[in-house]
């Protein structure tokens, strides 16, 4: 089921800045969509458009069948949002903050308490539940924000840099929770980040954005096939036949570009038959980072 749909969505600020330019894409339920791009690429503006905080200057979008620009209050009922600018009250405890947001979402008091309790435990904040928020560290606030966004069991979750400021252990914790939500509860997750390696680890599909434009969208395999087909074979060997055109990288390993994995046996056979010794061989597929840089480089060339 398609839960989030963007059709030629554009936003031009009154200052004349075109933050989002004609983005079209759609998300399915249970999907973790990585919306990737450098700072200022238009990720946050897109989230604000999808959550109804901004009205689009062109195109339209819908979340669970409702247009957030026309009926923001209704879209918010099934939507959770974590952004850097959505903070909570310093004068309340972590627990009381969650209870407050539970009642704002119309959850009955007893159920709200239970839900807050579960979420605080899941996110490792149980011990700090009765501390005022002013005593929380950045990482704890970040995790409490996630708990707050989940308090009403949303069907769509917007996360803007959810693991920035988290230590590795909490980040792992949060990632585990995000994956579980997508897999078990079929929640659609729209995750904005500029950390490409992190995105590759957790997301199932990606959209790469720069200067408000969507450069490419798809799964890692699709993006690899589209932008950087093939792979790089790295071989650690000696007595390599001279007629095999191999480059040596900085570690002294041999590198060769291949079209597909089918090419590997032939190359290895040739080295072995020529009397070479192979210590290791690995095919390296382009990472999200490689794809991103190749796409932005292409874009620059086109512009020149």
């Amino acid at each position, binding site marked *: 089921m398609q839960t989030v749909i963007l059709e030629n969505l554009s936003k031009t600020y009154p200052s004349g800045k075109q933050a989002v330019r004609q983005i079209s894409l759609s998300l399915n339920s249970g999907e973790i969509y990585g919306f990737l791009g450098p700072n200022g690429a238009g990720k946050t503006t897109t989230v604000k458009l999808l959550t109804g905080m901004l009205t689009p200057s062109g195109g339209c979008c819908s979340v669970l069948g409702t247009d957030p620009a026309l009926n*923001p209050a209704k879209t918010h*009922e099934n939507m959770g949002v974590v952004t850097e600018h959505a903070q*909570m009250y310093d004068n309340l405890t972590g627990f009381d903050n969650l209870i*407050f947001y539970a009642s*704002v979402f119309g959850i009955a008091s007893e159920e709200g308490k239970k839900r807050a309790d579960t979420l605080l435990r899941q996110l490792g904040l149980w011990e700090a539940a009765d501390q005022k928020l002013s005593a929380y560290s950045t990482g704890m606030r970040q995790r409490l924000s996630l708990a707050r966004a989940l308090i009403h069991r949303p069907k769509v979750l917007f996360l803007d840099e959810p693991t920035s400021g988290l230590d590795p252990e909490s980040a792992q914790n949060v990632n585990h929770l995000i994956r579980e939500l997508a897999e078990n509860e079929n929640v659609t997750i729209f995750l904005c980040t500029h950390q490409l390696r992190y995105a590759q680890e957790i997301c199932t599909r990606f959209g790469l954005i720069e200067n408000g434009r969507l450069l490419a969208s798809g799964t890692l395999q699709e993006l690899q096939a589209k932008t950087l087909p093939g792979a790089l074979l790295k071989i650690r060997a000696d007595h390599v036949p001279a007629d095999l055109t191999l480059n040596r990288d900085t570690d002294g390993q041999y590198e060769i570009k291949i079209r597909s994995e089918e090419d590997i046996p032939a190359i290895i056979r040739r080295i072995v038959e020529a009397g070479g010794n192979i210590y290791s061989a690995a095919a390296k597929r382009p990472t999200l980072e490689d794809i991103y840089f190749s796409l932005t480089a292409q874009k620059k060339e086109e512009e020149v």
Partner: protein
Amino acid sequence: MNQAMTAVIKKDFKGITSNRRLFASLLIVPLALMIILPSIFIFMIHFIPDDPDVQKLLDLIPRLDPSVSIELTVAGLIVNYILPVFFLIIPIMAASIMAASSFVGEKEKHTLETLLYSPLSAGQIFRAKVMASFLLSMTVSMISFLAMFAVVETEVFFLMGSLLLPDINWLIVLLLLSPSVSLIAITLIVRGSAKAQSVEESQQSAVFLIIPVLLLIVGQFSGVMLLNVWILLGLSILCAAAAWLLMQRALGKFTYEMLLR
């Protein structure tokens, strides 16, 4: 009024009472205006020196009922003509403290955006916040009035041996003028809060709202324009109409985009 709006109102109240600085400023003004100032007036009247010049001045005061002592007449004038105007400062002050902290304060601390992600519409959030400011302003005003009344009556009774009845002026001020004045203050602050970036900035501009009240005070003391029931009633209706108009206009302008700017 639904559960969510009630939760926002409760939270706003808690935000004021748990902030010592705000709560203190909420207490100090009523204490000064409604307890200390009237007491000074009453004691001054009682301990007037028997100077012939002062006596001449006192003789100028109109005495409706010659059987009432001059002391009690002056005390009555102060309580029923001077204090109601001072009293108007209280709803303005209380409303501005609350409205400034609840709109600009939330914006400043980045909690407003979180609230906007709730299933409350922008209009409902606006109404909840106005309601919180209005309720606080009315509560503080009522408590101040009752405290003032208790203190003044006790002082008058022990010093002058009789009780003073507040006249109809007070009824108009309490039930009509102060609610509408506090609504005007709230709406103006909310409108300004779209532009203001800090609570201090917002509170500073709220101070200007007190200027018309100061003019009234000057008018009352000098006798340029002595407020009688009819003037007071007219003023109240004018203020109520202004409050309603301002509120409608602010409600129309209240959108997410304007708030997050």
